[in-house]
């Protein structure tokens, strides 16, 4: 539920910083470092710069975990091997990303795109993001943070007095319960709740969320923001319900909130069409 409007950055300070930057002719006080690669947009790089961070390098982590054959038959309960493979692939991809980030001297990775594919025989996780470091060449931490927040969100979060500490994720694969023929026939002629399915969905959702929370707890976070969930049946095993959730773990940094009062803006672009006559022409 990210707002599509980027014009409402509620940071007076941010604006001041950007203005002072412009006055200085954007002369980054970075240590001499060889050119950096990143997939950040110009706005994002500028906003990062305004809070004293610079992109270092585009980093990538990938991992594939195999799933044993024959576990997708219609059984009961959770498909434990699949859940374990998912956790393994995500965990390994994240640590590969951290290793690459450490190698280039980054303090963390922002804007991580998580691409995870569950196939019949393997789980494939790929994470791509931009390693960032504060300008001034401070010593990088032993364990860089990983975050799927954009550069803009990262800057906002820091101004608001929070730090990202890592990516939390959790998934669960649960078999939909079978109904006996008698129950199926009885239910097919009524408007009723199918309680056993509800229970199965709850089981998947709760264990996925709980796994995500325990990863967040291990990272020492105080909360998880921007949680994204993906749910639904698997394309190759329609009786299995997948529920996966991930988000960025945050922790209060102890710095004061520098956001200041929020100002209200009315964007003047993108005038909306009040009446679209195209529909009258039969499309």
């Amino acid at each position, binding site marked *: 539920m990210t707002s599509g409007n980027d014009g409402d950055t509620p940071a007076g300070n941010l604006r001041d910083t950007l203005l002072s930057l412009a006055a200085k002719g954007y002369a980054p006080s970075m240590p001499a470092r060889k050119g950096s690669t990143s997939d950040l947009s110009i706005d994002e790089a500028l906003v990062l710069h305004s809070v004293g961070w610079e992109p270092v390098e585009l980093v990538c982590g990938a991992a594939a975990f195999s799933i044993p054959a024959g576990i997708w038959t219609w059984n009961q309960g959770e498909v434990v091997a699949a859940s374990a493979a998912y956790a393994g692939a995500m965990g390994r991809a994240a640590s590969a990303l951290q290793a690459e980030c450490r190698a280039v001297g980054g303090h963390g990775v922002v804007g991580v795109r998580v691409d995870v594919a569950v196939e019949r025989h393997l789980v494939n996780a790929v994470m791509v993001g931009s390693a960032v470091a504060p300008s001034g060449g401070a010593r990088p931490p032993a364990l860089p943070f990983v975050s799927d927040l954009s550069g803009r969100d990262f800057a906002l979060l820091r101004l608001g007095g929070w730090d990202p500490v890592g990516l939390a994720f959790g998934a669960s694969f649960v078999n939909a319960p079978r109904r006996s023929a008698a129950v199926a026939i009885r239910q*097919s002629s009524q408007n009723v709740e199918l309680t056993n399915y509800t229970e199965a969905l*709850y089981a998947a959702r*709760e264990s996925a969320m709980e796994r995500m929370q325990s990863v967040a707890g291990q990272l020492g976070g105080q909360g998880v923001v*921007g949680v994204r969930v993906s749910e639904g049946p698997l394309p190759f095993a329609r009786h299995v319900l997948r529920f996966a959730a991930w988000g960025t773990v945050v922790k209060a940094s102890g710095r004061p909130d520098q956001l200041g009062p*929020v100002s209200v803006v*009315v*964007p003047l672009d993108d005038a909306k069409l009040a009446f679209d006559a195209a529909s009258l022409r039969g499309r």
Partner: protein
Amino acid sequence: MSDPNLPVDLPRDAGKRLAELKKLFTSDLSVNEFLLVKQAGFHPLGLVMGSSIYHTGIQTRKWSKSQELTKLTEAMYNARELAMTRMEEEAEQLDADGIVGVRLDVNYYEWGSDAAEFIAVGTAVKAESGVSHRNKLGKPFTSDLSGQDFWTLMQTGHVPQGLVMGTCVYHIAHRGLGQTLGSVGQNVELPNFTQALYEARELAMTRMQEEAERLGATGIVGVRLEEKSHQWGSHTIEFLSIGTAVGDTGASLTLPQPTAVISLDN
């Protein structure tokens, strides 16, 4: 059921996760929304959800008669209420003041024809000042407003009271051969269709308003009117109107004067 504090309706698995949320919050709010909710004086407690898988789709309809399909309406209501109530129970469990950013969805799955999952997801919040913001019925408020909308609403001396909805499943009569032939080659209104759609919409809107009145709300903001055929064929339509009922706190308007901006991004 091991935990005696847990509402009976809530599946057992929900208990453990909610117990853990005392230490850590989870939220599907974006960073902007998160910071704005904090600015509005609230703290997110956790992602709360409610869901119900429901079998709907049974009611005979007359081919040539426009009518409300009351059994289906009841089923759609009941299923959504179940999902909403379970979400509210989770919020209750977290001792929340309210739920923001509620999404109410209907999903269909392959393994059950006519079985649909009704799901409600939102972020439970609590006022940092300790002042209760619960609604007139003493329950946590629910609202489908985003973090931005929530902040703005709070600056205008209003508080959300609850997510209110009205639904109506309506069968629109097919036209007879005579009627069809009569209007071929002419530009005319098809009054039976217009009438049926009107009535269905009015029923849905009225029901939503009744829910808001029960909450003692002074208005409903962000109303959406959705029309869906689900899996019932083209002549059976569900009209769903949904919005956030708000109440007036009498507090003065603290919204800053808006500034017009022209952004440089596209």
